[in-house]
């Protein structure tokens, strides 16, 4: 093992945390390596400083607040505890797995039953759905993106089952009443209360 590996053992040896075989290995290395011996002595010196703090006892602190007093303070702040409810329910994995499987099968069945769309977009045209053949689309000319040349669709009635274009420009003009509608007010006091 290299000196770097031995340094790791030296750190552990400073607190007597080495296994017997590691101790033997470290002792053998330090007999040969003066540098590691020096490092080991420095390590022990640092640890002796740490031991000063270890021997520093916090016992005087307890005399300022007696033990019984500490517990009395704590007990006064303890919230009441209720008996914990023992949970006897267990998660049933089989039911969950069956539910997921059946849901997946349902989704697959629905997706397979869906019609395949033959819609193909055409520039400048409006797709018009045929009333009698719902799956087929027919492109109607006249849509250019502006409001002036738009043609909507509407059912064509009973004639041939097709949908004919609807021209919005021929809509009858109906007057729009924009006058304000008066609110029913019973009295001032009621209005104030409701407000």
């Amino acid at each position, binding site marked *: 093992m290299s000196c770097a590996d031995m340094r790791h053992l030296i*750190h552990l040896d400073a607190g007597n945390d080495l296994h017997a075989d590691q101790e033997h290995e470290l002792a053998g290395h330090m007999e040969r390596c003066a540098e590691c011996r020096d490092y080991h002595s420095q390590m022990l010196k*640092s640890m002796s400083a740490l031991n000063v703090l270890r021997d520093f006892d916090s016992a005087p*602190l307890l005399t*300022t607040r007696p*033990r019984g007093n*500490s517990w009395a303070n704590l007990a006064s702040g303890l919230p009441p*505890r209720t008996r914990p409810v023992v949970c006897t329910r267990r998660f049933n994995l089989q039911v969950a797995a069956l539910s997921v499987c059946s849901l997946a099968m349902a989704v697959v069945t629905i997706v397979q039953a869906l019609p395949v769309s033959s819609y193909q977009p055409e520039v400048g045209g409006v797709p018009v759905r045929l009333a009698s053949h719902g799956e087929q689309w027919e492109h109607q000319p006249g849509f250019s993106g502006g409001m002036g040349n738009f043609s909507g669709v509407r059912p064509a009635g009973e004639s041939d089952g097709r949908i004919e274009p609807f021209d919005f420009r021929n809509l009858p003009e109906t007057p729009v009443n924009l006058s304000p509608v008066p609110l029913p007010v019973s009295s001032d006091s009621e209005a104030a209360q409701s407000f």
Partner: protein
Amino acid sequence: MHTMSEPDAENLPYDMTEPEDGDGVFAASEARLVNDARNGDQQAFGSLFARYERRVLKVIRRFVPDAELALDLMQESFLRAYERLDQFDPSRRFGPWLFRLAVNLTYDHLRKLKRRGRWSLFSEAGDGDGPDPSSADPRVNLDLAQEVHTVLEQIPETYRTVLVLRDLEGFCTSEVAAVTERTEATVRWRLAEARKMFKEAWERREQCIGRERML
């Protein structure tokens, strides 16, 4: 029947001997106390408090020098333990769980203090007395334990926790592993690194003092 080991604790009917690790009887009685406390028996929790009060306080004081603050944190740790007894796994030992709560609570408090100091307009300036100009190095007058504590604060929390629990509080490696919820191999590696960090920081401090003395 339980015996009273301390006459001043009137409300603690349980045995209040100090914890002895590896004692099966102690572990069994502790498990019973924990179970009773979980069922709402405050006196059982009082016995747990009496068992661990001193050790928890000592551990907290390793991180917090202020005695009164350490006492408050100790009480807060027990309070939190009582509130979270439902989360405690009864198949495990109560001590490491309690120490972990206390250490985490202490670190949370220290982080809060650090954040407050970072963003506050005015920081606490201690007792207001500056260093004595007649003294060449004010740190020489400091208590050595306080100096070691200052050096310890330079070590990152992860490593400092292991170092404090093992080298200052005398926890064995398995106990430190239980408190920190790490494997013993990880604890040993962190312990070696922590001692290395402490050695380097301590030597830097000694070099700094040596240079100032020469000036």
